[in-house]
């Protein structure tokens, strides 16, 4: 048994520790991406790894998302266990061809002759006034693609623990790290916990309403739940953790108990992950619902630079509180 001690750990450092551990544990693991090495990583996640592991294993790439993501796929086919970092999710679009047409496809199309044990880490999301080419939340698009596993660590413990099982997965795994989480510090056990990459987590138990979210929206949803508690509303908070394949059971069981659901997703509403969750609740738990499923998403605009506009575009805790209260009190949500 461990002594049960804890320590403060930052999300960014947790991910770095996880990578370091993987690099030490397995010769086949290497990290590649733009400025992951000498620069230290554009979000400083890989800071210090270059010095420790050298330029072969902490491999700076040219600005060639298509080629280095594709090279990660090829290297995985060739027996390596690559971790590819793409600077931000908007840039991943330049590699979308390789991710969909090769990484997600080759195993099935080859009749199971090949596996692609590849991890791609992608910072995602807004909130830092980086405007419309650096702030989007496109993980829902990737969650559309069969053949991928899509993870969204929302806690420091998950940031620390998800990489190892992702590397052990014989399939391509995408890890989306919300940029607002990098500075978050949490108390974690001294001995890193093993976490699974299959199930959602109930971050707060409750009876009155299920608040379903993931990634960068978890903090604001927990904040909303705390505020609801002061109003006597007991909200359950579900962190999806795994966006594909979805842990439908945890969601449905929760909704069956609370009879109400609000989905909070930083992606745009139309055709979103929130739409998928909502649809599954309708399909599988319709008769358990006391009210229509509600969604709180980003406003459907390219994320603007100006602070007040960006804030207005993103899901807010106050909105979660307002909608959840209306549901629980049996009032119409609008108006």
């Amino acid at each position: 048994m461990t002594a049960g001690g804890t320590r403060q750990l930052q999300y960014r450092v947790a991910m770095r520790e996880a990578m370091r551990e993987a690099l030490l544990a397995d010769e086949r693991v290497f990290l590649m991406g733009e400025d992951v090495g000498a620069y230290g990583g554009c979000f400083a996640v890989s800071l210090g790894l270059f010095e420790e592991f050298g330029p072969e294993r902490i491999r700076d790439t040219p600005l060639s998302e298509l080629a280095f993501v594709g090279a990660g796929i090829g290297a995985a086919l060739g027996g390596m266990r690559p971790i590819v970092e793409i600077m931000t999710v908007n840039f991943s679009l330049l590699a979308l061809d390789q991710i969909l047409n090769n990484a997600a496809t080759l195993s099935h199309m080859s009749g199971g002759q090949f596996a692609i044990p590849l991890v791609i880490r992608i910072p995602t999301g807004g909130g830092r006034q980086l405007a419309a080419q650096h702030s989007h939340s496109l993980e829902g698009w990737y969650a559309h693609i069969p053949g991928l596993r899509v993870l969204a660590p929302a806690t420091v413990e998950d940031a620390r623990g998800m990489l190892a099982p992702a590397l052990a997965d014989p399939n391509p795994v995408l890890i989306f790290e919300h940029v607002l989480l990098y500075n978050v510090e949490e108390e974690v056990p001294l001995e890193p916990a093993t976490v699974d990459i299959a199930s959602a987590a109930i971050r707060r138990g409750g009876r009155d309403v299920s608040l379903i979210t993931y990634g960068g929206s978890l903090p604001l949803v927990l904040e909303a739940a705390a505020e609801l508690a002061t109003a006597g509303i007991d909200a359950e908070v579900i962190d999806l953790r795994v966006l594909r394949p979805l842990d439908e059971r945890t969601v449905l069981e929760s909704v069956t108990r609370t009879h109400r659901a609000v989905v909070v997703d930083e992606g745009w509403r139309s055709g979103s992950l929130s739409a998928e969750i909502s649809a599954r609740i309708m399909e599988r738990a319709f008769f358990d619902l006391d009210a229509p499923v509600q969604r709180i998403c980003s406003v459907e605009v390219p994320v603007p630079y100006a602070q007040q506009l960006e804030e207005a575009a993103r899901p807010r805790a106050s909105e979660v509180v307002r909608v959840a209260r209306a549901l629980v009190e049996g009032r119409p949500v609008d108006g």
Partner: protein
Amino acid sequence: MTSPSIDRDHAVQLMREMTRIRRFEEKCAELYSAGKIRGFLHLYVGEEAIATGVMRALEADDAVVATYREHGHALARGINANALMAEMYGRVEGVSHGRGGSMHVFDAATRFYGGNAIVGGGLPLAVGLALADKMQGRNRVTACFFGEGAIAEGAFHESMNLAAVWQLPVLFCCENNLYAMGTALARSESETDLVLKAAAFDVAAWPVDGMDVLAVEQHARRAVDVVRAGSGPVFLELRTYRFRAHSMYDPDRYRGREEIEHWRERDPLVTFPASMPDFLDQATLDGIERDVAAEIEAAIAFAEAGSLEAAADLERFVTMDRVPS
């Protein structure tokens, strides 16, 4: 040009390989018209000398990445004609279990990584396979085939640069058949000298007469030696021509009959035996044709007798439960 210094066996092997590819594909065209083969079908007719020559320069544990026009590469690489034909038929006995069809031939046993139908899509894969070899200290070569049309894609430029800057063991084989579907090279590239383009990445590059199977083999051996020595990638521009349309859907309106006839005079299945009358006399050629015909008939019988994968297995291998060894 062609070195006369090969022996009879060698000549027969080259001729047999080119003949296999030609006859296999001619049969595929017939089977396509008969509705036995569906989807897209891109034939390699006219270009056989390239796959035949390059594959001879590779070792068994080298890797091959190819395009949708890959039947010739598959056969020359040693993929069984039965499994290839069964794939065309969409049978589970096919080399990709019938999931890929003509454009997506995969074979772990011969390290054949597709069959990629995204123009340029295979190049980054080849770079990664070579990176894995280099990082693991394995002295293997990855040969990557693509058409000249792919040179307009960003994937080409990114991959060439990456392979060059990391000095990776990739043999880039650009099969320049002058047309990307209906678009002639000069209508899509400002610089039509492909060797110059490769040289811009500081990659060793040279042109090869892709209609001359001996020249292809010689140059491929030289190139593979350079790559295997660890001197970084090599780019070969293999100059060739496809005698048939781009695919079975293509009405071939964009090139003149004269041009096609001109290139047909360079048909390697005609010029090669003509250059080696002592080794490839009529009786020998007839023998090759007989053997090849029997092999193809057997392949068709195999495919016809093949089974269809059950729809219940539709979702198999979307994800894998382990990395196949």
